């Protein structure tokens, strides 16, 4: 499942980059994510609650930064599972922050997500819509977070 999002934020490139690559700030913006733990340089661990209709589960994921070129580009590898249950998730993601004007930036985010195991059997088209909806809430939270930190 490939997800691509592009959005603009009324903030300078460096401000956006600092927020979006700071696990303490970006963690709470991820829907269903309560806590992000830094386990090493460029390596994070998080638990993300996912609800797909009647199915409620928690993915324990490890995110590793595979490339970071501040303040414009980063790529990440994500791997996780559902604990005792049989689903696994893996993703390769890229993040690009570019300057539109000195106080306006564009963020492009891509993610290629693979879900296998029991949740892989669940309606793929619906999962995509749910992922899109999570993505929209993520973007809204980032926008609010950056604007809030400015005021």
């Amino acid at each position, binding site marked *: 499942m490939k997800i691509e999002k592009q959005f603009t934020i009324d903030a300078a490139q460096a401000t956006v980059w600092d927020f979006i690559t700071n696990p303490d700030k970006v963690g709470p913006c991820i829907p269903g994510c309560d806590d992000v733990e830094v386990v090493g340089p460029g390596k994070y661990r998080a638990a993300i609650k996912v609800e*797909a*209709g*009647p*199915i409620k589960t928690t993915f324990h994921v490890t995110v590793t930064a595979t490339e970071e070129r501040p303040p414009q580009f980063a790529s990440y590898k994500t791997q996780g599972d559902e604990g005792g*249950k*049989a689903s696994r998730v893996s993703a390769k993601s890229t993040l690009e922050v570019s300057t539109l004007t000195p106080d306006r930036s564009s963020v492009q985010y891509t993610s290629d997500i693979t879900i296998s195991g*029991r*949740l892989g*059997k*669940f*309606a*793929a*088209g*619906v999962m*995509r*819509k*749910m992922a899109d909806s999570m993505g929209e809430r993520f973007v809204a939270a980032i926008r609010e977070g950056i604007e809030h930190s400015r005021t």
Partner: protein
Amino acid sequence: MRYCCPTSIEEAVAILNTDEDARCLAGGATLVAMLNAELLSPSTLVSLRAIADLDGIRHTDSGITIGAMTRHAVVANDQRLNNGLTVVRLAAQEIGHPAIRAVGTIGGAIAHADPSADYPTALLAANAEVEVIGSSGARTVPAGDFFQDYFTTALAHGEMITSIHLANADPGTVSSYFKVARSDGDFAITSMAFCGNFDGSTCTAARVAVGGCASTPLNVTAVDKMLIGAELGSDQVTMAAQALADACDPIDDVRGSADYRRLLVKRLLPRVLQRAIDQGSN
């Protein structure tokens, strides 16, 4: 996993309220498949099969009430569901295969809230009311409010569906259902249900519902209004069909692309109207 088989609605509600992870087991056509696929593992299954009050179709002065445990096959064959309510019978006839219709129930089907399933779309067009009960009592939820998102309903924790009420339609009301699926018995790529009135081939009242094209079955009031005064085959119907397709937000999946689903919406509206007219003249 605990299995309970209460004999009264009150007993079932009490169990649902003591165990947050309990789920009602109706016919099992969907729930058991999901258990087999390890998608769900509730702590308690509350079987509803021994609760006689939930089964059967009752004709009342105000309309028809279908008990939550009524099998699809029973609804599919009940000739009292006619005129404005034919749509519900036709939808029941389209669900799966005879074996599935012999076990699946209307309550179970709508509790699952799959927007590609047959009942949600038909019940929305028929303006049905879902009667639910919980620890704080019974309440009635219009079909338009009951389906909230993919596989998500207005049922609160500890609540269960007791019946579906279909109010008597105005005299002369006709209804129809049209489903496009990859094969007989499959879920809809796109489905459409209609309830309304005609004067000759001119629509005088309309309520259209689309299935398989959004997170819930979709009724667009503006489209219903556009159809009033529209003659079958006129540009007004084409414009209403376009507006309906524009309101959809379909998924891309193995059954069809989002664009194909929107195209089907445009093609199905004139057909579902024609079917309703044909049904009225029969």
